[in-house]
């Protein structure tokens, strides 16, 4: 449904190697998976409010964890959901750590930094460029509860309801309700 490429089953793919030290098949497999998924993961992380630099670090960490996971001979079932789940957990950990830092760093009298994950309020120049509909939808998106926003982002990255439920620790019914609720808000915004 979403205009996105389907991730093929995570099979070992051949990657040409011109480097001096020939990578092991496992290294090659992980790099192939990185090529398939890094943009999706990073986009999801950005959508949750993780800054770009931190997001890139988290993505590296996710694939190193995947390497260890496969090296130990652990389950290969649904690696796509596994990768998103690790990224999600790291982003939550990142969020908690940043929040603690912010609370510690806020000077007396200084306004606290906005907690919202997605806070991409366009500056005045952008505001002029973007059309009204886009701005309205952005405001709807920003106003969504955090969990609903995460559901939408994961669905947009091609995850099934079951996979979303696994990543966010939600039931299938809760995922369906969340998505339906969010899309209804978008529909209402456009009716205005």
């Amino acid at each position, binding site marked *: *449904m979403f205009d996105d490429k389907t991730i093929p089953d995570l099979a070992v793919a051949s990657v040409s190697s011109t480097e001096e030290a020939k990578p092991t098949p496992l290294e090659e497999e992980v790099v192939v998976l990185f090529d398939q998924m890094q943009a999706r993961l990073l*986009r999801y992380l950005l959508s949750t409010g993780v800054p770009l630099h931190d997001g890139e670090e988290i993505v590296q960490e996710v694939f190193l964890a995947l390497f*260890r996971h496969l090296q130990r*001979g652990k389950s290969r079932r649904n690696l796509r959901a596994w990768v998103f789940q690790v990224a999600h957990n790291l982003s939550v950990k990142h969020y908690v750590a940043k929040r603690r830092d912010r609370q510690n760093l806020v000077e007396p009298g200084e306004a606290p930094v906005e907690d919202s994950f997605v806070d991409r309020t366009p500056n005045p120049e952008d505001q002029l460029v973007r059309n009204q509909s886009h701005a309205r939808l952005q405001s709807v*998106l920003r106003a969504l509860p955090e969990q609903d926003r995460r559901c939408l982002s994961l669905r947009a990255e091609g995850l099934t309801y079951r996979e979303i439920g696994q990543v966010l620790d939600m039931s299938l019914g809760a995922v369906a309700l969340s998505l339906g609720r969010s899309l209804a808000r978008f*529909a209402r915004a456009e009716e205005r």
Partner: protein
Amino acid sequence: MSYKDSHLSDQELLLAADGELPPVRAEEVASHLAACWTCRVRKGEIEESIRDFVHVYRGDLDPLLPSPAGPRALLKAQLAERASVAPGWRERWTQQDVLRYAGAFVLVALLALLVYARPIFPSRQRFHVVPVSFPEPSLTPGVAAGVNRDQICRSMPPKNRIVPASLQRKVFEEYGIAGAEPRAYEVDYLITPALGGADDIRNLWPQSNSSAVWNARVKDALEDRLHDLVCEGQLDLATAQQDISSDWIAAYKKYFHTDRPLP
């Protein structure tokens, strides 16, 4: 966004659009959509909302994504570094290995428990070892084979003739210890064959090995003493048989001139 029951709900339309309905229901929904303009329009509106969201989502975020070349090279370098390091036990041991070794360990522990902790968990058939130092006269009066002194002194019979297992079981049953641990008792001849005792169940009794004082070793010493006395002509065979079968401990005291077994 509310519709009559005869139409599909928004939730169901979304599930259908996402391919999340069970196959049978998906077919029913497809048939309904083919026939129902209202629901097709609703489905179109949902698709439109999805399109709107994707437009905002990708439109805002895609321009922020950097080229993957740098992160890819960094990952390859980090993977090469990790792959060059000899894997520790965590990496070498797969989950199956851990389960296999844990299973073997549990099995060995259980076996050890069974072997060494049996006294802690006695089975129902298991009998406590009852020290038996005296034969029951009604069960084991002692039976002689009807041989004379010359016959027993001509050749030395084996000291401990092996009692057949079937006969041992019968003795255990007669003494009410059928489930007893065989090693805890020695089925002994009351009148030893060296003194003309018969292979008869009435001449056999279970002497417990746990008896600390008047045990099988002490009785063996008495049997040897009596055999020597008989063969030396100092004691007649019938008296020896009578003394050992009526009260072997008293006989020991009598012929060794002691109240306690000699070391």
